[in-house]
């Protein structure tokens, strides 16, 4: 797919999202590595291009399912940063009151319906959401984001088949970051292009350079439009890289040095910034302002969340059931 030409409005929107994603990731990484934050976190650094393109292509009313590595997707969909940090830190001000954690964030108000720690298992859930959208007669689209490794799960297959069969308004986004935990993609599948898996369901599959937000946006928009107009599901494979490994603290010894160096060189964030400047449509000042805004928003959120308490022990048994009366203790 060639590089598409996007409006500067869309590019600005994408860059805003990327800046915010990067600021969140940088802050969490720094906080965890320094011991300031005690949290589990799966960095998306390097994958911002995919999530920003997806976020920009979706409407507010569209819905999203993602994974433990989901902060960029959440931000793309518009999750308030206080909510995001509070969920990750497990504070009582979190919408889930300390009960979810990094792997399980939901933000139904912004359309984030599920993040799951079970690789692949979110995809059938997205099928159910898309089925509901179709039954409702709404023009809501559901996007589901997952990794390369997830396409080897049975859940992926069952879900893709069902979505194709029922012609559901679903966009399946595979963020192929070339690794599943510590195992490279070519150790877990023979095929070279994950998008070829679409053939097995008779749906459209495309592979894009996920580090090129404009190209990715074009593919996402086309898929979203197809879904919205009754054209059924699409599998979009976006090639990218996890620059900080699987989780914060990962030493990445299993990644060949040259591969990592190459990936650093392809970091979509500085590259996109450069493209926007070069295009002449954006000034250094404008982008700096966007970055400053992102940093300020992150700092403000962290401040609020850091000051908040952990939930009181008494809240443990709340929300197990609607009515806990007869439940075991």
């Amino acid at each position, binding site marked *: 797919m060639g590089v598409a030409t996007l409006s500067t409005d869309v590019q600005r929107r994408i860059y805003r999202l990327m800046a915010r994603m990067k600021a969140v990731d940088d802050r969490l990484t720094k906080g965890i590595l320094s011991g300031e934050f005690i949290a589990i976190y799966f960095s998306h650094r390097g994958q911002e291009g995919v999530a920003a393109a997806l976020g920009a292509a979706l409407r507010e009313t569209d819905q999203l399912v993602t994974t433990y590595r989901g902060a960029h997707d959440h931000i793309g969909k518009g999750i308030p940063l206080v909510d995001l940090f509070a969920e990750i830190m497990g504070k009582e001000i979190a919408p889930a009151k300390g009960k979810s954690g990094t792997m399980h964030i939901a933000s*139904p108000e912004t359309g984030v319906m599920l993040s799951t720690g079970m690789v692949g298992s979110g995809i059938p859930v*997205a*099928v159910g959401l898309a089925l*509901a959208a179709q039954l409702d007669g709404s023009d809501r689209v559901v996007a589901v984001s997952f990794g390369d490794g997830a396409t080897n799960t049975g859940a992926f297959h069952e879900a893709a088949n069902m979505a194709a069969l029922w012609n559901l308004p679903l966009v399946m986004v595979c963020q192929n970051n070339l690794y599943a935990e510590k195992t490279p993609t070519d150790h877990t599948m023979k095929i070279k292009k994950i998008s070829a898996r679409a053939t097995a369901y008779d749906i459209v599959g495309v592979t894009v350079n996920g580090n090129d937000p404009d190209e990715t946006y074009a593919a996402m928009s086309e898929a979203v439009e197809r879904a919205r107009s009754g054209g059924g599901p699409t599998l979009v494979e976006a090639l990218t890289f996890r620059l900080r490994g699987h989780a914060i603290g990962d030493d990445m010894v299993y990644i060949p040095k040259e591969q990592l160096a190459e990936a650093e060189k392809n970091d979509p964030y500085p590259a996109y910034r450069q493209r926007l400047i070069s295009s002449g449509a954006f000034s250094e000042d404008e982008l700096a302002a966007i970055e400053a805004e992102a940093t300020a928003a992150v700092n403000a959120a962290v401040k609020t969340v850091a000051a908040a308490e952990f939930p009181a022990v008494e809240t443990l048994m709340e929300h197990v059931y*609607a009515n806990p009366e007869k439940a075991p203790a």
Partner: protein
Amino acid sequence: MQEQEMTMLGAINLGLDQALAKDGKVLLLGEDIADPAGGIIGVTKGLSTKYGADRVRDTPISEAAILGAAVGAALAGYRPVAEIMFVDLMPIAIDQLLNHAAKMRFMTAGRLTQPLTVRTATLGGMGMGNGATHNQTLEAWFMHIPGLKVVMPSNAADAKGLLTTAIFDDDPVLFIETGALYGARSSVPLGEVAIPFGQANVVRPGEDVTIISYGLGLTQAVAAAEALVAEGISAEVIDLRTLLPVDFPTVLESVAKTRRAVVVHYATRFAGPGAEIAAAIQEELFGQLAAPVVRIGARFTPVPQAPTIEAAAYPNVSDVTDAVRRVMKGVREVVS
């Protein structure tokens, strides 16, 4: 309310029918459930014709995705009723129930819920010779899942009443049907009657011993109680109806009176549902019991196909009467 005699199969069909009629958000998903098949033995017969193949929807053989799709539809405000043909197949789908449905309310502090029902059936005790992969009784697993509810009706009226409660409950419910009871007839209220969960049914009052059961085990429990009358033993029989929650108040009140308890189920005895019931009774009524709480369940073996040994794998009425006789003597004896 008007009643009519019907089979458990018919009662479940009627319960589904009424739920579909009442609430446009009720949605059925499962393999072969739509007409003309209407389910492999007809439980959902007529429903897709009446409510459309959109709402009574055939699925591929994709158990994980069936439950996953039900989880998603529930997130979007539907009340899905997913069918997993046999409980033996639940393992393929259980990730969605365990890791998503049962934890959703908790993990979102109540912002997202799972008004979801999973219907499945155990073929255990049907004596069809289906063999080990089609005769399991796995309700104990599901009792161990916080956030879930587990129902196992023993008769047509209860099946309809409990199914109605399940479908309109705002938490996920596993509704386990018993193949051997599909043909069992009883009088069923035709209007909407929802039987609350955690409300056991004292199906037979008695003074000397309490026999606690549910599902197909109840048949043995009642038959044993009837047989024991001749020996002057008055057995109270309790149908638990729901296994999560268990109605301990009713159980304990009965055992406090009789001072003896026998638990009967088709599930494998070791680490089965009876373990929880027995452990709880001895804990709550320590010092008040005249005999140990005895458990009768299936043997610790896969279920074989040949009729001779298949029958021997499951409990029978004389296992129950023997157990009652032992607890009447207050004698400790190994029971298996």
